[in-house]
């Protein structure tokens, strides 16, 4: 066995949940506390490194500057100044193609917080909830509606149709705005702004969503990711990304393990044996499905076409036996 094969076997047999847990901790520290170490990854990150986390953050979520740009007066928006926006999109795209929606599954601080809340629920012994098929189809549209509003409302502000109090409309309802700054002991976002009716409604809506976020994340795995417009924006570019999730339909026995471990309840991951690229708009690329698959090579994550993590029988057995103590 060559060195490369040794490395590949070690990666495929990794205790994936433990690896993912520590990788999430790393990204959380980088994006939420990176400012302490002077780290600045810019303001075009394809993940919820919340801009309201002021000095502490190691970078900023792209949705914040994007909404600011969309609020520009139209004469400025449709002028040479728009090159700034194109430049911003280009940087966002370069960040995005590296990890695809792995930004959601591994790097997003809001996603990580939801995983911690899920761990808390598991510790209490309370069972988790799943959507019915009808609910799943109906609610899945919400992220696209939010994405559309995230563009249309700021454009309306620039066109003079809406008040400036509606600025950054998605940030106002994003739980990241209220929850992420808490890790820097900043509670300033937990207030209602009574300075105008619009501000009052938007800040109330923001805290209402925050309340729903805590309940939802407690009973439903990755509750907010299902409604996240950043995820919808990712999906628009996901075909160009380097990191991909592939499926060999011929090797799949449709055992359903991948579906059962999927936090986002994506049924296609088990049912679809035709398409090689099985990314859907809900997939957060957490790769838990690959780790749970017992069929060698049926599911694999590739980077620029090179397999970096794939399902193996040995890996499956090792992960399933984790913590098991046989009496001899």
């Amino acid at each position, binding site marked *: 066995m060559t060195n490369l094969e040794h490395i590949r076997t070690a990666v495929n047999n990794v205790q994936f949940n433990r690896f993912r847990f520590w990788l999430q901790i790393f990204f959380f520290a980088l994006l939420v506390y990176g*400012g302490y170490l002077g780290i*600045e990854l810019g*303001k075009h990150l394809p993940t919820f490194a919340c801009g309201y986390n*002021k*000095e502490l953050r190691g970078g900023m979520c792209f949705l914040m500057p994007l909404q600011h740009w969309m609020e520009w007066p139209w004469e400025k928006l449709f002028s040479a100044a728009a090159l700034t926006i194109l430049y911003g999109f280009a940087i966002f795209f370069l960040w995005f193609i590296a990890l695809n929606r792995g930004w959601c599954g591994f790097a997003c601080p809001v996603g990580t917080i939801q995983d911690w809340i899920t761990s808390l629920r598991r510790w209490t012994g309370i069972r988790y*909830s799943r959507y019915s098929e009808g609910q799943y189809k109906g609610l899945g549209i919400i992220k696209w509606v939010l994405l559309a509003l995230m563009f249309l409302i700021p454009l309306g502000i620039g066109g003079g149709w809406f008040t*400036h109090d509606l600025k950054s409309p998605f940030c106002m309802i994003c739980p990241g705005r209220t929850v992420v700054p808490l890790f820097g002991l900043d*509670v300033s976002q*937990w*207030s*209602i*702004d*009574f*300075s*105008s*009716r619009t*501000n009052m409604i938007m*800040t*109330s809506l923001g*805290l*209402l969503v*925050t*309340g*729903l976020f*805590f*309940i939802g994340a*407690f*009973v439903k795995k990755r509750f907010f990711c299902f409604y996240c417009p950043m995820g919808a924006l990712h999906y628009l570019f996901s075909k160009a990304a380097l990191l991909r999730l592939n499926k060999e339909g011929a090797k799949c026995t449709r055992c359903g393990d991948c579906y059962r471990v999927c936090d986002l309840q994506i049924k296609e991951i088990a049912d679809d044996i035709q398409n090689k690229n099985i990314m859907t708009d809900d997939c957060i690329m957490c790769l838990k499905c690959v780790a749970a698959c017992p069929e060698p090579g049926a599911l694999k994550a590739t980077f620029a076409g090179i397999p970096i993590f794939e399902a193996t029988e040995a890996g499956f057995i090792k992960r399933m036996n984790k913590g098991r103590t046989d009496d001899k």
Partner: protein
Amino acid sequence: MNRVFIVIAALSLSLVTSMSAANADVLWLTETAPPKASASQVADHAAHHHAMHSSTSAVSKTATSDSGKHDHTGMIVLDETPGKDHRPSKQVWLRRGDDIKKSPFSDLDGGDPSLTLIDQAGKKSVVEAGQENGLFTLKAEMPEVGFYEAYLEQRSVKEGRLLVELPKIELLWASCQPKEIDEEAVAKPIVNEAVALELVRIHKEDEGCMNRIVSGDVVNFQVLSYGKPVAGIPVSMVTQEGWRNTQTSDASGTVAFTMIREYFPNWLEFKKYHTDVFLVSAVMEKNESGALNGQSYSSVRYEATLPGKYRPSPHDYRSYAWGLGISFFVIVFGGLAVYLYRRRRLKPYKEVRVDDKS
């Protein structure tokens, strides 16, 4: 006893009046542009006021006045646009008089005015003054995010006394990107060691570029002469609505003013970015003799001014109680709703017995 009280009261009143009167005709810089609609009126207004002012000055300047074209009781529309601080280029105007609502825009009195712009690093740059609609104006480009101080110095001799007017303004190019800001430099005051009298606003340690002075804040100023603190100098603050206060600088040259609340609109008309202006002025007199442009003087009067802006306090429009209340309400009742929903969907245990023999 009553007589003593009356005498003390009269003395106090005369002292306050003399202090106010001493500062009533101060020259100050502002970022507020003159109203565009009546630019010509403002120019006439300035010319007229200028002429009135110059008439008492030994240095006279040719100026025409036409009091019929303007109204001295008319208020200046203060148009402080939100977000103005985010622009790297600033335009500054000159006004005379400590009534912020009514004091007219002004032009220079003549003499040999000097203009200086100092950045956070203490670097001085030359600034070109110009005229727009017959009014003095100063355009400053700020290359980096942060605070800048613009200084004007104007000298004239009046009734054997040299008047040195030292209006100054603090300009800010703000950014909501904390990484673009040198926090240490922002917190450090900019001092011009070349001026005889200067008012410096002491910045808070965590001030940054996005903090604003709000009602209820205690704002500290330091009186400096050639960069050194001066004690015993009366410093006056007047706000846009006319509230006045005078304090004397202590041993470290410091005075402190608490910004009062002056904004009481109806709720639906409330604007959190509403910006009021205040003006701080200090006067120092010295027995120095000399001559300026052939006119001799036996004493010198230094008048330093520094305007500032302040907004309503967030305490006037933000409520944490409501915020936490809404969150807890949603969490408690939402959690209860989820619990009841899940409980309703639980299928009761049902035992089915199968008789193998049958």
